[in-house]
């Protein structure tokens, strides 16, 4: 097989992009717009990385990571992709919270949160305003020593209900905890809160990624799926290309969109770096993984509108560790109505929970199957509260675990959101250590999610273009 799959690609490119997550795709598209010759190598058979979907019997199409993103995605799609992709983005107005501390629906923007915090939580208006001004003013160059927990304590001491309201959705969105730097919370939260939560309409992830692929091809990018990069070739302390299918394809720059740690450890190898850098690499913590349950409503069957995104929990209070526990108390339900895919007219529900890789990785085959079954059953029971009689309306249900995410994306420990905060510096410093080698993709909370990944792709494309001009 070696060589066969590679016959229609060139022997040399300006840039090879390894991985086709949103960061890799956006980076490749920008580089093509800068008139660079670009090759994308993707190990999976589909483009998109975690921005993915799958089809099942009964006409079901499930979206994996399309639960909602910040308004900024509209601008990002318009500027770095096409106006048409940007125009298909709409706001999700029904965001619901339901837990032992509170239960209500919100449009998830500053105005509505201000209303909730003053009316429901009885926090003085000045404090609420002051909090929002503070988090919105946060930027990357600010003090990084204050934690998110300390930030909340400063404004809302002793108010666990407020902490839950402000933190739980963000923990779901990027795995961050109260111990992460306040600035990373501030930046991500302000992004979401600036105008609410958004999604694509008139076609799901398959449509968006398909449109992106069309655009890449139009811009002259060569794309190879089913092609895992084996090695980034380093010669004389800089990059010379990539080994794929046992063959070296030459390039002056390489961008890895694969997991940061496996890029450094496996694709490049520790021996190519200074000891000091490797010390920093070893300190980088991987983010948590996820479990999901995909629930397909029978064709022709309907469900009522109960909101778009439901943050539900039976836990007494917010606890980021408990959110990852295999003993699940908190679930986010995304309800997809026919507006998402008008051509099918179908409904589906995806339940997501944060999860620890370790809880799932070492089970025997039988334990693993039983745990998945339990996950499905408990999820359907939990959903029944919001959609009574749901079991009678479905004809497909299946679960994904950290093992599933690991096998589809090759992320270390099936990480859903890349690395913790310290990963960003390592990612950014990579080209200083090894000229011509770049990383892009989920790192450090700020650069993760659909918007963060796509924007990081642009930032990396800028650095690559600058480098190639030297």
């Amino acid at each position: 097989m070696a060589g066969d799959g590679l016959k229609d690609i060139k022997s040399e490119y300006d840039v090879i992009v390894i991985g086709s997550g949103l960061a890799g795709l956006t980076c490749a598209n920008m580089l093509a717009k800068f008139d660079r010759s670009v090759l994308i190598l993707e190990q999976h058979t589909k483009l998109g990385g975690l921005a993915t979907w799958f089809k099942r019997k009964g006409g079901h199409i499930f979206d994996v990571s399309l639960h909602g993103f910040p308004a900024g995605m509209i601008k990002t799609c318009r500027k770095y992709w096409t106006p048409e992709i940007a125009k298909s983005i709409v706001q999700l107005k029904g965001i619901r919270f339901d837990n032992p501390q509170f239960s209500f629906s919100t449009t998830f923007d500053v105005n509505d949160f201000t209303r909730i915090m003053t009316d429901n939580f009885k926090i003085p208006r000045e404090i609420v305003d002051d909090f929002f001004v503070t988090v919105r003013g946060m930027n990357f160059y600010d003090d990084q020593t204050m934690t998110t927990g300390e930030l909340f304590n400063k404004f809302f001491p002793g108010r666990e209900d407020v902490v839950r309201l402000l933190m739980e959705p963000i923990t779901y969105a990027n795995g961050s905890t109260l111990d992460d730097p306040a600035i990373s919370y501030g930046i991500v939260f302000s992004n979401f809160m600036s105008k609410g939560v958004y999604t694509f309409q008139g076609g799901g992830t398959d449509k968006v990624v398909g449109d992106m692929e069309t655009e890449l091809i139009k811009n002259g990018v060569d794309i190879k799926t089913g092609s895992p990069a084996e090695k980034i070739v380093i010669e004389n302390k800089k990059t010379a290309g990539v080994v794929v299918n046992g063959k070296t394809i030459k390039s002056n720059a390489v961008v890895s969109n694969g997991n940061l740690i496996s890029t450094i450890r496996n694709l490049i190898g520790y021996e190519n770096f200074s000891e000091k850098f490797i010390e920093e690499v070893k300190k980088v913590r991987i983010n948590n993984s996820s479990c999901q349950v995909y629930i397909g409503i029978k064709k022709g069957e309907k469900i009522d509108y109960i909101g778009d995104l439901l943050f539900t929990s039976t836990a007494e209070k917010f606890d980021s560790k408990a959110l990852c526990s295999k003993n699940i108390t908190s679930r986010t339900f995304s309800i997809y109505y026919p507006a998402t895919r008008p051509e099918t007219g179908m409904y589906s529900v995806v339940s997501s929970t944060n999860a620890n890789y370790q809880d799932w990785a070492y089970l025997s085959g039988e334990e693993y199957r039983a745990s998945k079954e339990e996950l499905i059953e408990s999820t359907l029971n939990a959903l029944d509260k919001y959609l009574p009689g749901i079991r009678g309306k479905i004809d497909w249900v299946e679960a994904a675990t950290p093992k599933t995410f690991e096998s589809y994306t090759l992320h270390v420990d099936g990480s859903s959101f890349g690395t913790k905060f310290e990963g960003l510096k390592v990612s950014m410093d990579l080209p200083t250590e090894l000229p011509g080698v770049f990383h892009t993709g989920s790192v450090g909370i700020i650069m993760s999610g659909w918007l963060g990944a796509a924007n990081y792709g642009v930032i990396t494309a800028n650095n690559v273009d600058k480098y190639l001009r030297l």
Partner: protein
Amino acid sequence: MTREDIRSTILEVIADIVPDEDLSALTGDVRIRDQIELDSMDFLDIIMELRKRYGVEVPEDDYMELATLDGSVNYLEPRMKEI
């Protein structure tokens, strides 16, 4: 390019990046970001456009120089006068 050309070039670049903003009343000596909605990605777009269109490289350490319209013209004048 003359100073006037450079100024209109910058305005043209910004208009492409944020088409919904009204740039006609932009004051030259006030931070651009204080007058229109221009985030850090938009700013990066300006840098990338200048490089793509005119081959002008603005190192990260000099980004501050482009905070205002007047500052941008002063900074770019020696770098774009041959264009």
